[in-house]
């Protein structure tokens, strides 16, 4: 009953409680719901298949600017050669203009890089829609050995060694540089990459002079021929899946990719892709999932044939292509 006994007893009690306490401490993150500014948009609804791109009501500007820096940082790749912006040139349509992109060590990908502009309005990401959110999408290129080919621990270490990122992150986040914070700032930056105010949007919002006569003819064809069945909504596409070549054959080169089938292994999903957005389509050549088709004329022709079973006349193609140019809009500057 001396001091030793009591010390031993107290130690024993502490030892008994340490595992449960650690467990509780470990589980604390479940409770924490971090305060962060959810980006809000001012959606406008109009009657018709095509919906206008909204404007931004609220966005965390600090995160946007830090996200922009991270987006452009090659530290996110294994050998510090490739950044997000290498393949998504935000001032040039949000893609890189090549059929397929070049990753680290000059490795080539198998699919055309989709535009990052307005990507936030796509219901899923990637050609096959395998990512549900922007944050999820990022994991793809970062780990893909032919794209950035790195891991989160590596990225975090590199960012921590960078004075700018270290200070910026610790300023904005209590826990500094973490995977969650990196993806969050990038996603917020991507949420700022939208192009409202295009001619088509102005037109559907009531400005009848926004489209030329030719473009209005194109719009009529676009609707009546059934393009808007799939290319509709805010992104004029990007909200459903569809089978490539539903009615007629597609050129052989476009038939090699099984699309969603590679993910679901469902025979019905063979050649099924996410319907791509036609926003800024004039700036995102070349076209289709492997970038095989270089011009809009050709792309429109293939689409009309394979999806609608229709052979378009050259006038019709010209009119529709003219319309497609009206889908481009200026990128908003958040700052």
């Amino acid at each position, binding site marked *: *009953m001396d001091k030793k006994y009591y010390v031993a*007893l107290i130690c*024993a*009690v502490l*030892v*008994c*409680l340490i*595992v*449960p*306490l650690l*467990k*509780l401490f470990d*589980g604390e993150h*479940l*409770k924490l719901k971090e305060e962060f500014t959810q980006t809000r948009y001012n959606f406008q609804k109009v009657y*018709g*298949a*095509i*919906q206008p791109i909204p404007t931004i009501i609220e966005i965390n500007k600090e995160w946007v600017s830090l996200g922009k820096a991270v987006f452009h940082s090659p530290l996110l790749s294994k050998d510090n050669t490739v950044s997000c912006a290498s393949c998504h040139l935000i001032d040039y349509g949000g893609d890189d203009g090549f059929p397929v992109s070049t990753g680290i060590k000059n490795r080539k990908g198998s699919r055309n890089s989709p535009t990052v502009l307005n990507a936030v309005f796509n*219901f*899923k990401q990637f050609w096959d829609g395998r990512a*549900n*959110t922007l944050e999820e999408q990022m994991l793809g290129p970062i780990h893909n050995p032919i794209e950035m080919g790195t891991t989160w621990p590596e990225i975090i270490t590199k960012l921590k060694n960078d004075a700018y990122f270290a200070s910026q992150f610790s300023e904005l986040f209590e826990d500094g540089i973490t995977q969650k914070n990196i993806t969050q700032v990038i996603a917020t930056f991507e949420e700022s990459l939208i192009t409202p105010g295009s001619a088509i949007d102005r037109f559907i919002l009531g400005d009848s002079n926004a489209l030329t006569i030719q473009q209005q003819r194109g719009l009529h064809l676009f609707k009546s021929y*059934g393009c*808007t*069945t*799939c290319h*509709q*909504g*805010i992104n004029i596409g*990007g*909200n*459903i*899946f*569809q*089978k490539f070549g*539903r*009615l*007629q054959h597609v050129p052989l080169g476009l038939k090699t990719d099984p699309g969603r089938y590679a993910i*679901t292994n*469902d025979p*019905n*999903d063979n050649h*099924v892709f996410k319907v791509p957005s036609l926003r800024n389509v004039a700036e995102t050549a070349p076209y289709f999932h492997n970038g095989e088709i270089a011009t809009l004329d050709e792309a429109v022709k293939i689409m009309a044939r394979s999806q*609608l*079973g*229709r*052979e378009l006349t050259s006038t019709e193609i010209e009119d529709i292509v003219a319309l497609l140019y009206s889908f481009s809009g200026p990128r908003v500057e958040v700052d």
Partner: protein
Amino acid sequence: MSIFKYLPEALCLSLLAYFANNGSQAYLDSQHLYVNLEKLKTLEMLLPKHQIQLLNVNFSDQVHYDRFAQLDSQIEQAAKDLENKTQLQTLIRNYSSGTSKYIQLVTMFKTSLRLISGYETSAFVVTNSVIQQGKIDVFNFLNNPTSRLQQAIMTRLNSFDSTQLTLSELNHWNLFRLHSLFVLENYQQSATQRQHLINLPIISNVNKAVETEYLNITRSQRTLITATSASILCLLLLLIIVLKRQQMKLRQTSESLEHAVEIKSQFLANMSHEIRTPMTGIIGLIELTLKTTLTPQQRAYLEKVDFSANALLTIINDILDFSKIESGQLSIENITFDHIKLFDSLNIMLGRVAEDKAIELIFDISPDVPKTITGDPVRVNQILLNLMSNAVKFTEHGHVILHVNLAQYDGKDWICYQIEDTGIGLSTEQQLRLFKRFSQADHSTTRKYGGTGLGLAIAKLLVELMGGRIWVESELGSGSKFNVALPLIELKSKIEPDSLPGLQMLLIEDYEVTQIVISKMANHFKVDVDIATTISEALTLVEKNHYDLALVDWNLKGESGLDFIVAMENHANRPDLLVICSAYSKEYIENHANVAFTGLFLPKPVTMESLYQILKIAKEKNHSELDFIGKSNQLVKEVPNNQTTVSKLIQKILLVEDNKINQIVAMNLLQSLGLTVDLAENGKEALEAIEKYAYRVVLMDVQMPVMDGIETTKVLRQTYEFDELIIVALTANVTEEEVIYYQKIGMNAHLGKPYELDKIQILLSKYYQLYDDVE
């Protein structure tokens, strides 16, 4: 053994760990479940909306699917992180991919049907009727979708010969045919898919999952509460165990302490016996030696040895008493005893010492103090003796007065003793320390006055045991007053001495306080007192008055009381009775004075009793040769008024004692009392001796070889009645229990060792005619 010693703690701790673990697990579980529940509730809210969108897809005014896509995305997000809901997740995944496929078909259908219904026919002559017929066929099919009709229409469409058509008309026809065939081929499939999706029990499953999750949360919360309370219980249990352990430890400690105390008191009893036995020898032999012819130097030395031995015995007694009281072994007797006798014995013990130091020892006993009281005479005596010997010890000159009064306090009768001295006094600080054990007023006191410092502590303990109080009033340098108040249990008849009116007494006394006390006593008997401080004053008074009685202090300032006696020898107005008063014995005075005197002797201090005796004699005018008390040790009232010649009858007493030294001491002592002593070495010899001669008294040592005193007593009591043969235990074992035990086995009395002459004398005087003077 030691592994199992802490088994309760170990058990408790493992239970604590188990429950704490369970509790935190349950907490985490419930947190997870809450998150899951949130998602399920989201699903519960989203799925019906999604199904509405799904049903709406078919309508022609549903032109874009943003809302549908958004819901689809949200549902997938919510379903993705669900925990433990694989079945539901699969179901949702199936639903999701089903809707995806369905919507692919539906969108195409809508295009195809719109194209078919609005198909332009006018420009082309050949295909006009076929297309017209085809339109009707397709819409017929849609109204009545049977496979037979489907086959018939398809055959008709494919059988149309298009070889003669122009290129533009061929394209026109082919477009119509393609879309019509698409509708015909896929209609059934889309209807089936739609039915399948609608039939999927997805919403009910989600509802069930929500319910299950609520139940799980309730269960995990119950587990949490149970585990938390169990953990708290474990901690409490642990606390109880610790306290229990403490308690056990304390009990052990107290048991061992009790045991130690028992051993200590046993040890003390043994020690007291072991020490007293040799002390008996020492003191006895010293006393015997003092009776032999010695050179003055030898005598002086031996007297000092005697004093030291007695001091040592006192100390031993003190320590023994103290430890007895401390261990609660001392019991207070409650017997009726002669209270006045106490003062006599105090007188005997202290009178000489006080006289030697030229201190007046005065007993001021209030007349209303009862003669007999109930209590423990030994202990009361011990307390008073202690206080008074202290008073005498610390007083260099002046007086020591014992005031005894009755008082009423708190509705009870108290007997109050106050010992007043004119000694060195005590400071306030010293008074506080005074009654603590081993503490004297001053450490230097020990060196100057000796003593163990136990006396007052014992007195205090004894007084408290008797339910009384003890306190001191004092000032440094001006004497002290020690007060003892004891509850007076039984008020016995007071001394109501006859008053002796008409007597004239002359008191020759130089000490003022004594003058007052004695004259007060005398006044109580209605005796008139005149006081003279010096002999010349007395002589003047004698010239004037005739006194029945003159009480003369032997030791006057610069004079001797005997001078007055001598002066009175042939005086005409000689008082009828001359009494010398002193703390010294008569013999001592005779030895130190050059004159012999024939007066009476009264020992100091004067008590009511002794004064009364003297006054009575004066009243009876009995002038015969009265020798009151030869030795101051003798009590006044016990001595017969008439001088009795001690009969020289053979008074035989049997001493049973094995120790040689004790034999010599006891035999000498007894012989000095005028007894013939027979000796037995042990119990067996004693039995033989008693057979031969009928002794009145047997003094029986307890611890002896061959046959001990207890055994012997038991044998003797089989033959002799209690009054027929007096058996007195002689032992150093003086604890209460032993005394009681001796009485039980048939011993009449006991005498302690070392032998105390006066006690032996008092006891034996009941059975024998003893010499008065044993010196």
